[in-house]
């Protein structure tokens, strides 16, 4: 067998366009990295699960907060002011005042509850009907139920409350907003806590993936040395590890998403029953498309970041001996 100048063998390394080379390399390396993961299904599954649970935790708490917000969101607009007028204000004046307040931009509606109507209501609701009949005259003032328009902020609501309170006809403005404000403050804290927790868990994911990649690099040290010996660049030997990080991120993020959605699916039954008991209209908000993409995107980013940092650090050290 003579060495012939066979055209196939002699042809110089053909230079396709740089981009198509790049694309071809990445396509085959990504498939190769996935194949490598699938050859160690148990170990890969463990890591994917760790990433999934780590990401699912903040995502799930976030969904709970979002649901709490959407429920309490209804309360914001339902913050009616009860404006009790002075006892000596006649109905006609009360009606005029109601018209005046109704014209304000920050007010959605004003209902007048006359003293008579209030007493009738009270009789019916309290069960003290006969006792109340003993009263010579109606002790109740006329009242206005002021509903602020939805665009109000906390500050403008306070201002509105003050201005109505300062009217000469007003005896007392009653707004039971404090507990709502507290609830919102708690949600704010929880939201911040989630952000901090998510950042810490993100670091944990980077460490987990980085460590896994580091072990992978150590296991393949000889292969890396040989590959470098026959002319592979750092970029070439790094590539499979970047793709490994990518796949960990993608699979972990997707699994996290499935975990959260499944958890919400499990909660849907009990929540519907609770809503039924309160005759309320509570429904569970699930993760939207953009949130889902954010979770997967974050996972992929963390995977790539971890593998990049790890591979860049170790690849330079491994040189043929």
């Amino acid at each position, binding site marked *: *067998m003579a060495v012939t100048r066979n055209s196939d063998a002699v042809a110089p390394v053909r230079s396709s366009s740089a981009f198509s080379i790049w694309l071809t390399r990445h396509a085959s390396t990504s498939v190769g990295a996935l194949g490598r993961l699938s050859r160690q299904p148990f170990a890969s599954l463990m890591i994917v699960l760790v990433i999934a649970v780590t990401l699912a935790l903040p995502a799930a708490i976030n969904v709970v907060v979002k649901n709490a917000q959407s429920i309490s969101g209804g309360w914001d607009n339902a913050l009616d002011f009860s404006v009790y007028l002075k006892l000596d204000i006649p109905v006609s004046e009360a009606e005029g005042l109601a018209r005046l307040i109704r014209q304000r931009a920050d007010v959605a509606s004003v209902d007048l509850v006359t003293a008579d109507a209030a007493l009738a209501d009270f009789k019916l609701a309290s069960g003290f009907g006969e006792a109340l009949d003993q009263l010579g005259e109606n002790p109740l003032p006329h009242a206005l139920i002021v509903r602020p328009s939805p665009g109000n902020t906390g500050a403008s609501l306070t201002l509105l409350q003050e201005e109505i309170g300062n009217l000469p006809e007003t005896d007392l403005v009653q707004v039971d907003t404090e507990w709502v404000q507290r609830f919102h403050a708690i949600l704010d804290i929880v939201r911040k806590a989630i952000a901090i927790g998510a950042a810490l868990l993100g670091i944990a994911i980077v460490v987990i993936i980085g460590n896994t990649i580091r072990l992978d690099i150590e296991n393949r040290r000889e292969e890396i040395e040989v590959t470098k010996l026959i002319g592979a660049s750092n970029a070439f030997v790094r590539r499979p590890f970047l793709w490994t990080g990518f796949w960990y991120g993608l699979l972990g993020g997707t699994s996290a998403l499935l975990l959260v959605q499944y958890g919400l699916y499990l909660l849907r039954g009990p929540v519907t029953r609770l809503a039924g008991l309160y005759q309320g209209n509570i429904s569970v908000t699930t993760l939207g498309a953009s949130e889902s993409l954010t979770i997967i995107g974050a996972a992929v980013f963390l995977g790539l970041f971890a593998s990049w940092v790890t591979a860049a650090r170790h690849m330079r050290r491994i040189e043929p001996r």
Partner: protein
Amino acid sequence: MIQLDNVTKRFPGGQEALSGLSLSVDKGEMVFVTGHSGAGKSTLLRLIALIERPSSGQVIVDKQNTQRVKRRKIPAYRRQIGMVFQDHKLLYDRPVFDNVALPLFIAGVSHRDAGRRVRAALDQVSLLHKEKQSPQTLSAGEQQRVGIARAIVTRPKVLIADEPTGNLDPDLSLEVMRIFRRFNEVGVTLLIASHDISLIDRLGCRRIALDEGRLQQEADPWQ
């Protein structure tokens, strides 16, 4: 093609593997480097492959002064040289085909284009029928031939080999050397480190004898 000018390689401990060595290998030559272990054969090849750099002196390969090859450019430099190792340095987690195709993949050749060239290379070492096997299932001689196919698949102008027959019996050694000879006949420059004097003599190639890092000019004990 390969030229060393007054090359010294001193290791951190202070001992010199090469001391003021000058030699040259012409284009199309097939030259053997001989000497006892520790004579500096491997160091010489490692300098050419830029695994090490000389402490002083110049190594020029195919008109390139290796001194001027920057660290980042070393991979591209190595891709121009075929390398064969005593321990084959094959990757045992993938079949013969992928081992031979590796330099092509590194160079960015697509899998489809690589196929024909890998088969041409395997054909030259008579291993065409084993491309799907794992290197582990092959004999030592066959593994070495896979290593050679990998070294020549990119058609390098220069091929260096460090004790390529070190682990082989005489018949297999001769077969390997014949393969090298055939490459030489089509113009490849070869520099082969070996201590198998009788084999080298049968091939009738030029010999560079090293002794303690220097050229051993006279009183060659083997001749």
